[in-house]
């Protein structure tokens, strides 16, 4: 069966520090991968999606970047965090063929201080 791992679960980082959140998927190949940010009252905001290795699409301009170095690995990064980057970050995967719904990781609570 397919599983998705996202870490760390919580993270407190100072303003201006770098960020690296990692997400890996097991039990499937060539998944579509997503990074979402969740803010209170705003639902889920799609940040990045990827349909293949090295293929990244950004939905909104921001202080963050994403990379997909391997088929089942998706990384969210920042060179210098801002206070406004605080939030709950969710990684998700979706099968590229015949699948319809997205499956989510457990999320990372990022607090920038």
């Amino acid at each position: 069966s397919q599983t998705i791992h996202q870490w760390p679960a919580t993270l407190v980082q100072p303003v201006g520090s770098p960020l690296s959140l990692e997400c890996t998927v097991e039990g499937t190949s060539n998944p579509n991968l997503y990074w979402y940010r969740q803010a209170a009252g705003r639902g889920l905001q799609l940040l990045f999606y990827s349909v293949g290795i090295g293929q990244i699409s950004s939905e909104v301009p921001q202080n963050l970047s994403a990379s997909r170095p391997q088929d089942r690995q998706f990384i969210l990064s920042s060179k210098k965090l801002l206070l406004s980057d605080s939030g709950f970050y969710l990684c998700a995967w979706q099968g590229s063929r015949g699948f319809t719904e997205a499956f989510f990781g457990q999320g990372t609570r990022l607090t920038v201080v």
Partner: protein
Amino acid sequence: AQSVTQLDSQVPVFEEAPVELRCNYSSSVSVYLFWYVQYPNQGLQLLLKYLSGSTLVKGINGFEAEFNKSQTSFHLRKPSVHISDTAEYFCAVRRASGGYQKVTFGTGTKLQVIP
């Protein structure tokens, strides 16, 4: 492009009472519809989905939803809620076709079950 509207940001309901969480969508093409549940500090879990066929869809934990194409709605219902149903619920939509299709989420409805 598709969009989803969840009109109620919070819904309080007494335990064992019925509940309906509303979801309306907008799309010029056929869509798939989903409801997800999120417990505090956790990821989202799929409750149910509508792809095609019967407009009444049954999901996990006793929830069901009805697809109404004429009203572009996909409301979530449960006849009798439990304390454990306290969570945030998200409606989502994606285009009903193959390949990559972005999933668009509503802003969520917090269900608070009162003992």
